[in-house]
């Protein structure tokens, strides 16, 4: 220890060791940043990622009959991080022209039953509690608190793409579940 004390007492040696301490601090800092930024980034990135639209190809628009509601089945591939699920969905589609198409969720806005199209009356009718909807989705009768839920859609190169969503039943406001 005596020798060491005498060494460190020398000014040149003290300067050298002082510099060593600073250099160690800098290297540790850079190492911490090089590792720290990715570690923090890996947790922040997915947490603040925007929800991506999940478009599913449903049909060619030209294949849809004009003016008459049609049930369309399509494959919806949902994912939650690395968990992926493929589910077949059914929706009601009303085509008025090549560019004017409406897609309805097949779930009644009252309590979530599956409603049907009655060609004779020209209305959608829910068998559970008798809610009646017009072709444009408006409530014509029964306990339904809001019109039929429309689903997001886009038409690209003549193909209809639908984004599947579910909404809270039984309330006047259309709130996604």
């Amino acid at each position, binding site marked *: 220890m005596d*020798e*060491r004390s005498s*060494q460190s007492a020398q*000014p*040149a040696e*003290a*300067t050298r*060791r*002082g*510099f*060593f*301490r*600073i*250099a*160690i601090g*800098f*290297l*540790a800092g*850079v*190492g911490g*940043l*090089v*590792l720290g*930024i*990715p*570690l923090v*980034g*890996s*947790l*922040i*990135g*997915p947490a603040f*990622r925007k929800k991506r639209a999940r478009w599913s190809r449903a049909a060619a628009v030209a294949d849809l009959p004009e003016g008459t509601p049609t049930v369309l089945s399509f*494959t919806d*591939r949902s*994912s939650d*991080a*690395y*968990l*992926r699920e*493929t589910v*077949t969905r059914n929706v009601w589609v009303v085509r008025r022209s090549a560019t004017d198409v409406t897609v309805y969720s097949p779930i009644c806005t009252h309590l979530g039953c599956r409603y049907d199209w009655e060609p004779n009356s020209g209305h959608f009718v829910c068998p559970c509690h008798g809610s009646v909807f017009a072709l444009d989705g408006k409530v014509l009768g029964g306990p339904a608190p809001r019109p039929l839920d429309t689903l997001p859609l886009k038409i690209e190169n003549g193909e209809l793409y639908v984004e599947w969503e579910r909404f809270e039943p039984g309330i006047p406001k259309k709130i996604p579940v």
Partner: protein
Amino acid sequence: MFDRIVRWVDERIPLTSMIRQGLDEEIPGGARFAYTLGSATLAVFVIQMITGVWQLFYYVPTVDHAYDSLNYLRTDVPFGWLIHGLHYWGANAIIVLVGLHIARVFIYGAYKAPRELTWLAGVVLLLVTAGLVFTGAPLPWDERGYWAAEVGTSIAGTVPFLGDAVKRLLRGGDLMGQLALSRMFVLHVAILPAILLAFLAVHLAAFRRFGSVGPWDEAKRQRSGLFWPDQVLKDAIVAAFLLVFLIALCAYASPPFAGPADPLDTSYVPKPEWNFLFLYETLKFFPGRLEPLGTMGIPLIGILILVLLPFLDRSQERNPVRRPFAMAGGAIWVGAVVALTIIGYRSHPGGPEAGSRAPGGSHARLSQSAREGATLVDSLGCTGCHTINGTGGSVGPDLSNESRQGRSRQWLMDQIRDPKSHDPGSIMPSYPSLTKQQLNQIVDYLQSLGAANPPGEGKATVSPPVREAPDPAPPLRQSPVVPPPAASSPSKPSGAIHGLGPLPPGSSLGPPGRAASVIGSGEHGAILFRLYCASCHGPEGKGGIPNPGSAGGAIPPLSPIDRKFYSSDPQTFATNIDRILQYGSIPKGPMPEKKMLVFGMTNSLTQEEIADLEAYILERNGVDRAQVLHPGIPPKIFFYLTMAALVLIAGVLGGVWARMRANARKNAS
């Protein structure tokens, strides 16, 4: 403020004196870069622990999600490529560093009294490190890891008397499955790290008790230096370079995507990682009943020598020149390990890569005609549907014992030329363009199957996969991948090649299978492609194979693929081709001779194999299936930034040094 906090803590626990105890140390002969190997190993261990814990934010240890969850981290999580890459390359670096560290300690004679305990704790750390490497390999549940663990646990099973019990304990049962993965996981992330930390504490405490051993030359020991900050700076410099080196490896040599583990895939030929190659080569010297000597005897002797070394070599002499026997022994040991590793690296185990998987691979005992037939069976892709001697698909009947089925030559020739002549519902492609001579050759080969091989020699004509050797038990049919919804399982009535219902028309394909969302291995996909696809789609998918009766007249090439399937987005591209692989397709045209077979729905290929094939087809079309979608900072740019930060630091430190010296001179004068 900071001093007050330190004082407050010091009054309650002796923090400062503990730090001093750890850092205030004189090093005989002064600080040296040669002494940085231990601290470099420790630095990489710290990186391993941090990146290991971080991977747990995303990884799940279940056979159905382990592979996907890790790949999600690698491709979809910002800096996931770096976190996993550092862990992967860090594991490799540790083995090298531990080896160099042991070599230095050995050469300096630092294991001798009174430092025996430091050495012994180090030997335990070495074994725990080997355990961590072994238990970490299967965690991704990919082909490499799965088969490494399968073979590794089978090796444990060769121990006399206790072997089977040890193997079962490691696997949680007879076969590799979920329990095996759970056990490896708990060992890797909890038990072994806890043991490692405990013995690391012993190792460091024992090291501090007697300090650095220093040079063996007395003259050089006169000068002394300090551990803090002299040696620590050298340690920090080496650790910084190591970190940069590991980042470079992550950026320029990303760990491979080995494809999901597939216990049923007989085309995968496992070969140990480089770190176990020496053992793999050693085993070849101990065939048959001597096997336990190689699997357990040699490693145990090695461990015993390491444990007893400080007690066998009791002389205080540390100069290597005066320890010729020790040095010669060490050199022979290192030379043997290096030589065996190189030999192992250059060896090619039997398998499809070596051309032995194909039915026409080895038929020395067959007639010339039957050999020609075997080649034809190979080139026509018959094993895409039929199993022959343990390899091939399961769409059609197993042909391994065809000679014992009692079918006439004419029946077989008719079946090949026009399968519908025997069964109108058969989906087997017809081969009307084969010449009579070719048909005879194929039938000669088929009639040799089973007859040419006495019972028990069924696999003699095809090199068995290496992994089958240690464990005769069949692999667990526990595919984590759920096949796509199928109407019903295909029946396979014996004696007739039909088995499947009609092919679904192209317009009514079902949803994509699970393979579409799995990142397969393009490398393994290439092997599968040669086995199952090349006979119709041409070598490397370049096409050119005629298909009489189809609208185009030829089977479409896959490289380049029809643009309607192509997408630069790997997920979309894989989904586009997946449905064809799952459900097959019938080419347009009046009467196409060949149809795309149904691989997925019939389970004739597993979803893992289909994922590998898809990765290969994407690769052939210039799309990386394992494309990093959210890198955070792109790998190479991150590397450049790290380098730039280091250069900046060097510049700043240069300025600081110049200023400090100038100030010191000023004060002195």
